């Protein structure tokens, strides 16, 4: 016998697109009022309303509190329903009310979608803004560094030249003239190197740094760069040796840029090495077939924090070597390696020296490697 006896109640339920399902303590359907969704008497209500799975304990409470505003089956995209549970105190019957909320859902879904899309767009914009601010700060810092690095050698040039051109009764001693002239020359060379490095870095950042590849012999390049490095003033008393692998391959690369990579790494090494130190240049064909050139020194090495600074443009963690380079070397080496699809890597620990390696991919090697 129906617990919903009132005709008005039936009309009300159907008008509101509600199906009322009476279930027993085993959650078997005993009565269905309303017909817009298919629930059959005698079946387990959880078969038709799987949202009730797991809620058995709550359903058997005296005052079950289950209010699920929008539930639909994801696989079939059925119309969403609102599910609520009521206990009729007169009869102790448990009623599950299923209300068709498809109209509200279509509006609500559009709102949620728009809200989420806007929020995601807002997050992306905020991230882009943060990235732009960071880039702007980096640019400002870069310009400040450039100005500083240009001013230091320019001051030496202007100061030295001012002393040399100053009218005086007695001429300057010859050794002073030589000293000031050397300072002006060295500062000019440093300025030229800085400008060249800046141009390279700027080209790399804008994607305009190009390479002109040809087959070249890395051993010849390494020998040449070692000879050049031995002539650096800081290299006095530093031993630089080359330990080639058994059969170094030919390399398809831009020889000028490979020289630039090696010279940067070698000049960095000699700057930090004391007289009596040793720098090794090693070559190796890796198991993968890649060709690795390593410049290894037994200098002071770097902590991970210092290494991160050194890899940034103008990053010079060691103040003692600050005046002896532009601080752009490693940044340029990393970009030149990229242009050759080579992997640039630095292995170092504080107090244990540093090994900077560039691994050229096997595709750039002649087949006689091994």
């Amino acid at each position, binding site marked *: 016998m129906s617990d919903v006896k009132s005709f008005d109640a039936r009309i009300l339920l159907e008008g509101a697109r509600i199906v009322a399902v009476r279930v027993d303590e085993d959650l078997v359907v005993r009565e269905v009022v309303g017909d817009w969704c298919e629930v059959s008497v005698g079946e387990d209500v959880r078969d038709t309303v799987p949202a009730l799975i*797991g809620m058995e304990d709550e359903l058997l409470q005296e005052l079950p509190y289950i209010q699920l505003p929008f539930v*639909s089956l994801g*696989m079939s995209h059925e119309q969403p329903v609102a599910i609520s549970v009521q206990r009729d105190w007169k009869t102790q019957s448990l009623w599950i009310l299923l209300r068709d909320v498809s109209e509200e859902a279509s509006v609500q879904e559009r709102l949620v979608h728009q809200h989420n*899309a806007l929020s995601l767009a807002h997050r992306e914009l905020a991230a882009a803004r943060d990235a732009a601010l960071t880039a702007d700060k980096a640019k400002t810092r870069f310009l400040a560094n450039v100005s500083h690095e240009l001013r230091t050698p320019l001051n030496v040039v202007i100061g030295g030249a001012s002393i040399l051109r100053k009218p005086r009764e007695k001429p300057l001693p010859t050794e002073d003239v030589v000293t000031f002239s050397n300072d002006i020359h060295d500062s000019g060379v440093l300025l030229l190197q800085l400008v060249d490095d800046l141009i390279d870095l700027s080209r790399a950042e804008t994607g305009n740094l190009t390479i002109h590849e040809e087959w070249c012999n890395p051993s010849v390049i390494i020998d040449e760069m070692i000879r050049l490095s031995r002539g650096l003033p800081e290299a006095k008393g530093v031993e630089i040796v080359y330990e080639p692998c058994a059969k170094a391959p030919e390399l398809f690369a831009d020889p000028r840029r490979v020289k630039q990579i090696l010279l940067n790494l070698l000049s960095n090494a000699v700057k930090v090495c004391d007289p009596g130190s040793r720098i090794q240049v090693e070559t190796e064909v890796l198991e993968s077939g890649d060709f690795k050139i390593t410049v290894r020194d037994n200098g002071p090495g770097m902590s991970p924090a210092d290494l991160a600074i050194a890899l940034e443009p103008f990053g010079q963690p060691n103040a003692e070597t600050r005046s002896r380079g532009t601080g752009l070397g490693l940044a340029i080496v990393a970009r030149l390696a990229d242009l050759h699809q080579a992997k640039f890597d630095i292995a170092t620990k504080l107090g244990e020296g540093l090994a900077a390696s560039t691994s050229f991919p096997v595709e750039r090697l002649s087949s006689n490697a091994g």
Partner: protein
Amino acid sequence: MKAHKVIVIGDFGVGKTSLIRRYVLDVFSDQYRATLGVHLYKHSDIVPIDGTEQQVKLVLWDIEGAPLPGEQMMRYSLGASGAIVVGDLTRPDMIEPMRRAADMIEARLPGRPIGFAFNKHDIAPAPDDSNIAALKDRYGALITCTSAKTGDAVPNLFRDLTARIIGGKGGAV
């Protein structure tokens, strides 16, 4: 056979629906469509539990995303046997919302197993080891880097969580 309710929660747009649809239907769509309320997926699977393969039935609750768990998420979580908290590896601030969701699970469903899914691993690296260790220590949870796009690690995430649910290993494993 008893079916187990597993809820999948997290911020919107992190890939909850995509993970479930990859697991249940083995499909993926790049088109973002917000979930309203909850979408239910019934799924049967065979899961290795304590050394034997067992047939299991799951009802997966794909719950509307929100940055922080609210009243609605709590209502939907009622009676769940386990939960998967999904985060988006491309978002730098993903960990805190995941913690808050896991805190809600612990409070509402004490002892139920939790799985953390770091999604979109196809385009972003895994979180730091320290973050993973902290989540493991705090929640004893399963932690998996997933890609709903490629399907990488997705079935195992659901199966491992199911094994914990049925094997009786709760949150603090």
